[in-house]
């Protein structure tokens, strides 16, 4: 199996602008079961072979979708996430970047009440190689396999995945949780899912400066995980107080540093790679020739 998505996942695409349309086609090509799209004012049309609806509720009623992927501009994205939750979608993947953080605090509160899970925002999405891709990552660099990958980044995830693929270990599911201060699911949620997933034998956790999610994940690994977890942390060279691209990647008041994260991971017996190449070596060490 995999986590969160598999070949039976029924996906709708919210926001069929330039990016949304392009990636809807890419996802279809990968084999994802894209069953519909939502774009206000385009209800009744067909795109790439799937029907388009004006709103989420109509889309879900007609297609039985259980997952939505969002390409809605930042100013409307928070509303679109809540619309998906209201329509009964169980998993929302928000690619959109630049959503105000207070909007996200409201959204996560609403989603918790609805029981909807959120990946992102400001993320590349997730992929269970060979079965389903819900996001914008290049499918070709992934390969079905044994490693779960969870990361706060996009292209860095690709870099890490490339090594894992080249080593023939492959991925069960790879997910970018998003680079914002407030995201839906966090490291611990994904680690819990990977721990329960039969296909996953080990996990790579890719963290970065800002917040204390990696520190808390490290404690979780030690306390609650039987599967090996290895890690990689970026931002060792980042100056304090500067936002490094991602809204969440900022060292403030001495907290959120790479050093603190590396220390916490090491303390909790989670090996930390110095370079992306080293990640594979650490995985092989942990798996011990299995």
């Amino acid at each position: 199996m995999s986590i969160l998505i598999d070949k039976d996942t029924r996906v709708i695409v919210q926001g069929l602008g330039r990016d949304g349309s392009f990636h809807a086609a890419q996802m279809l090509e990968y084999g994802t079961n894209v069953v519909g799209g939502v774009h206000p004012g385009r209800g009744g049309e067909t795109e790439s072979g799937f029907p388009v609806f004006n709103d989420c509720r109509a889309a879900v009623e007609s297609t039985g979708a259980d997952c939505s992927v969002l390409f809605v501009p930042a100013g409307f994205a928070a509303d679109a996430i809540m619309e998906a939750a209201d329509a009964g979608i169980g998993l929302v993947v928000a690619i959109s970047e630049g959503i105000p953080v207070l909007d996200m605090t409201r959204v996560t509160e609403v989603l918790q009440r609805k029981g909807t899970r959120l990946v992102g925002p400001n993320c590349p999405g997730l992929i269970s190689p060979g079965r389903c891709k819900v996001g914008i990552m290049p499918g070709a660099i992934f390969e079905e396999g044994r490693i779960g990958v969870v990361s706060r980044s996009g292209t860095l995830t690709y870099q890490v995945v490339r090594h894992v693929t080249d080593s023939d270990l492959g991925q069960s599911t790879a997910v970018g949780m998003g680079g914002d201060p407030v995201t839906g699911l966090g490291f611990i949620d994904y680690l819990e899912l990977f721990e329960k997933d039969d296909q996953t034998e080990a996990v790579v956790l890719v963290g970065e400066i800002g917040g204390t999610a990696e520190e808390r994940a490290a404690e979780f690994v030690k306390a609650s995980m039987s599967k090996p977890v290895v890690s990689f942390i970026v931002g060792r060279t980042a100056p304090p107080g500067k936002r490094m691209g991602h809204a969440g990647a900022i060292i403030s008041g001495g907290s959120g540093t790479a050093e603190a994260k590396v220390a916490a991971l090491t303390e909790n017996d989670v090996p930390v790679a110095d370079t992306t190449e080293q990640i594979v070596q650490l995985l092989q060490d942990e798996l011990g020739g299995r």
Partner: protein
Amino acid sequence: MKLEEFQAKKLFSRSGIPIPEGSMVTTAEEARETAGKIGCPVVVKAQVQTGGRGKAGGVKLAQSPEEAQQRASEILGMDIKGHKVKRLLVDPAVDIRGELYAGITVDRNKKAPVMMVSPAGGVDIEEVARTTPEKITFQRIDPLMGLQLFEAKRLAFGLFDEKKKALATAGILTRLWSCFRDCDASLAEINPLAELADGGIIALDAKIVLDDNAMYRHPDLKEMRLPTPDEEKELLAKSKGLSYVQLEGEIGCMVNGAGLAMATMDLIKHLGGRPANFLDIGGSSNPQKVIDAMELLVSDPNVRVIFINVFGGITRCDDVANGLVEALGQLELDLPLVVRLTGTNEDQGREILANAGITAVTDMTEGASKALELASAGGGERA
């Protein structure tokens, strides 16, 4: 986006939080006039976007308008942690009996705003959190309901037994929340929240950091930005769709994606070199963006070599290569260049570069090592 004290106080005042009725000035002359107008003694305060200005000598008491002028001329132009003082706030001095703390920030773990109050104000709250964490009380704010009056009252009565002072404080806490919410702040802080000799409660200092992502819906606040020299370059980059932070090394980096950009900087340091910058060009292969990014790197006199690290995802490598060739055709680059290009359509991408006389590598470490070699050999050392 950080605001200076005088701006934050303006927003506080707009929300009904009591503040000293002072004025912002930019010359010593104006400081004297203002001191004369509001009545001495006054406090002359450097306006900089950093903490610790009191210790640095950026806050001075003045007993007369002449002294205010004297103090102002001493503080103006002062360098406080790399921030040059251009503006001063002249506030009436008040008679203080106690210094407390109140602040709101977004707690990433709780995924909600959190209010913090403490009787230990007037010092760095992070220091209080480290040494005497029991002195800070936290209140999670429900993102949908906002701070409730009973919550504010509970916090306030934890600070004051006296009803009048507690209720005044509760009012300030409620207004601080309104201010935070209405401005889309990511931090709003009153430190110190002062208890005055006459029993009044007042915000003596003000700190607000606004959420950059929300500024599209606050044009009035967006205009308040007072960029530091570093930030001017960052803002220029941002206006061109680039995310840039200047550092002090000699290897200029151009990368697609924030995480990979940080990983690139870390790798350079790991190999013994020094990155000159963080630069994320995002997911576009638009030649103009590559040209803009190149210009930005070249404008840094410390840069001796440029390392381009692109992992083509949905952005295809052949598109990136075409953009790069076009960019190089328009620029007279006097620096050595190392390109690492991999991902979707990488073979076509490398062929396009090869035809233009540029060798690209596929491995990130190989690319970074090569850049290091060139840099230590002097690279494009410039006068």
